[in-house]
């Protein structure tokens, strides 16, 4: 009997999964044609499964209640029936063909990254995303070329660590610099990574693509409506894997152009002639135009990276604020300390493990740490 209520419950849950207008039980509301294809494919297969499930387990439960010894049922002795066996091998096969057809169409569509309007390179770092609007082919060439910035989790640490602090609406799904794209345009995303494998995933777009260090992969989307869409890194990439969200803001083409033109001067101004990829690491968060490249922020680098080890003294790292741990080191002089931090020493990884940092940023972080530890 319990079993019965259990299936009732399970089926009810499956059904609600099927209807799933509310994305709580099902896939998120699709915002691109691919995501819509995936959505309907999933609904289709879910229903096929529900039907087979009900048929097979209807038979099983019927049998469980009718063909039991306690109701006096005598066992039959058949143990083979070629016709039946052939039928239930062939029918599933045919059903599978029915599923494979729309799936194949979707795959081919997903893989077609040709003729984009805009191309953006997304680089996974431990643990943030870097975006670079690169010179591509299509209609938006020239609009945003060269704009690049990092995108870090912007949820305050207290919300994560202190249960008493109220968590914000977009807890863990908010960033300092959003990826901005135009609606109705085909955006091609190139993915790669600097350290380990990450994955660029925006559920509402039906886009998930591994970002593999040393290789470039691509995927694409064309967003229907303006809005803010949130995703996350989807491949385990180390300790902060859960803390590197992806936030995409889709805007009209005009707004996009406007945004891009504001990004560019700042980017150019901030670019230390040599290294163009560093550009927006230093671009201040919200409005880049006003404050042309702010000063290198040692505190930020420290909190975003170095504190992981130096905050608590992990793996033998001298703890910031622990005077005893620092005296001998300080004696080496600031230049040596900075050199060690940049090149790495023993268990201390070069640049704290993020080769994307500039020397100046690391130096600033060292100064910040030293200031706290004197």
């Amino acid at each position, binding site marked *: 009997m319990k079993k019965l209520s259990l299936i009732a419950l399970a089926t009810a849950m499956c059904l609600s999964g099927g209807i799933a207008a509310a994305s709580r039980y099902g896939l998120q509301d699709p915002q691109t044609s691919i995501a819509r294809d995936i959505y309907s494919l999933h609904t289709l297969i879910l229903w096929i499964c529900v039907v087979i499930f009900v048929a097979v387990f209807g038979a099983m439960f019927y049998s469980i209640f009718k063909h039991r010894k306690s109701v006096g049922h005598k*066992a039959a002795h058949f143990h083979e029936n070629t016709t039946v066996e052939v039928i239930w091998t062939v029918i599933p096969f045919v059903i599978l063909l029915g599923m494979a057809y729309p799936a194949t169409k979707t795959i081919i569509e997903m893989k077609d990254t040709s003729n984009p309007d805009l191309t953006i390179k997304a680089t996974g770092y431990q643990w943030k995303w870097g975006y670079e609007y690169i010179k591509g082919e299509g209609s938006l060439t020239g609009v945003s070329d060269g704009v690049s910035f990092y995108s870090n989790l912007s949820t305050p640490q207290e919300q994560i660590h202190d249960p008493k602090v109220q968590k914000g609406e977009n807890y*863990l799904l908010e960033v300092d610099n959003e990826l901005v794209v135009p609606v109705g345009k085909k955006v091609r995303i190139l993915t790669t990574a600097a350290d380990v494998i990450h994955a660029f995933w925006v559920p509402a777009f039906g886009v998930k693509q591994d970002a593999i260090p040393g290789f470039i992969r691509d995927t694409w989307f064309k967003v229907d409506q303006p809005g803010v869409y949130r995703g996350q890194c989807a491949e385990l990439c180390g300790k902060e894997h859960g803390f590197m969200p992806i936030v995409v803001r889709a805007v009209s083409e005009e707004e996009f152009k406007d945004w891009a033109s504001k990004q560019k001067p700042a980017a150019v101004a901030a670019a230390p002639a040599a290294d163009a990829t560093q550009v927006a690491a230093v671009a201040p968060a919200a409005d880049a135009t006003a404050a042309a490249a702010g000063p290198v922020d040692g505190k930020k680098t420290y909190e975003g990276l170095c504190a992981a080890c130096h905050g608590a003294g992990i793996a033998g790292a001298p703890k910031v604020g622990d005077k005893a741990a620092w005296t001998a080191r300080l004696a080496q002089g600031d230049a040596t300390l900075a050199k060690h931090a940049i090149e790495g020493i023993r268990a201390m990884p070069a640049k704290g493990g993020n080769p994307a940092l500039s020397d100046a940023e690391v130096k600033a972080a060292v100064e910040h740490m030293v200031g706290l530890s004197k």
Partner: protein
Amino acid sequence: MEAVHGHDHAHDHHHPTGITRWLTTTNHKDIGSMYLWFSFTMFITGGILALGIRAELFQPGLQLWKPEFFNQLTTMHGLMMVFGAIMPAFVGFANWQIPLMIGASDMAFARMNNFSFWLLPPAALLLASSFFVPGGATGAGWTLYAPLSVQQGMGMDLAIFAVHIMGASSIMGSINIIVTILNMRAPGMTLMKMPLFVWTWLITAYLLIAVMPVLAGAVTMLLTDRHFGTNFFNAAGGGDPVLYQHVFWFFGHPEVYIMILPAFGIVSQVIPTFARKPLFGYASMVYATASIAILSFIVWAHHMFVTGMPAAGQLFFMYATMLIAVPTGVKVFNWVATMWKGSMTFETPMLFSVGFLFVFTMGGFTGLVCAVAPIDIQIQDTYYVVAHFHYVLVAGSLFALFSGTYFWLPKWTGHMYDEKLGKLHFWLSMIFFNMTFFVMHFLGLAGMPRRIPDYSQQFADFNMIASIGAFGFGLTQLIFLAVIIKCIKGGPKAPAKPWEGADTLEWTLPSPAPYHTFETPPVVK
């Protein structure tokens, strides 16, 4: 000992007692029991790690663990459950049951059998102790993907060695099983008369021999990348991180079937017994098992749909994977047909087998959903996948293991287990299992990635339900332990054949099965 074995066993004069009995034993029953206790220990350890995971995920926010330790928990939970709990448990069943079911006196290579078991505890110690080395255990996930695994501390090296040792143990175990089955069957027992459990193990053993060396290769390449300057998985040195995934999953997918085929075998013994009706479609069961095994070699990259394969690759692996649904479906239909018009009773083994059938099939369906590449791209590395593989590994493999344990416990101990407690164990397991894992489908569809220590707020309620379910499930397993201990200590005397519908050879022996059995092989008509 002398007295027990009587004059028949004179060659056993110096049979050691106490701890040396277990260290030196070459008896398949002793070794089988050791395997089973070992795997139960690992099951509890891995379970405690799982509860550590669920405790952290009970609420949003980081309450208990640092993220890096959380990663260690998920990684070690996976490694311990797969290599320490599920696989050795099935080998334990093989040791106990294969000789009894084919009328052999012992395993073919009795000493090697001892060695394959005793390799396991050191491997387990390596794994467990890696928590205490600098940097802690590896947190690269049980799949140990490069380059993340190349970055890890020395806990990773310990895990690599543990995998090597367990692999060696599995290979030896498999050789033993194959030789035993092929050479030592009682006269008259042709291959197509073998009980299905034996068949599934024969096929599984071949899978193991084929893929364990592949895994060993993958982790060895990791090891040399880590310490000896090779660049197999490092693009900067001409390697490719994705190569690791290809090699790993070439092992990993057959591994999935290694963990489920013997479960199919157990269920195929239990259902006919309690339906009092022969297994429907014996031959097609054998062929289905074999085709699943063969197909399992050509589907590995369905774990890698988001690595950026070309469309042709995605299509091939999608079609091949969907194809597996056919033989799997045949099995499910055959089991239901076996129950159809039977005369069923529902003792605990049957409950667990029917429970298996019901819940495992749900895992099969979600497997089909995952097989469809476009959908998989959406749900890969989310909680949907976590739900899927726990439906097939917990409700599949584990429930079958429970079923088999209750089924053969009277033969192993000579006592009947406590039926009331057994049923309680079943119902609670069933309820808490679904409570824990069903909601994970929703989490995954809605976009919660797996392997994260903290999540955004819209996932809070389902995570809380899952965590409560997990603790319930964990505690329920103590009932299982209680039943086992009670049954070993005493209980109603079990007859030679406690189950009316049972018809394999082990039931012709007294209960408990004597220390030495079938020294003169029985003749199968």
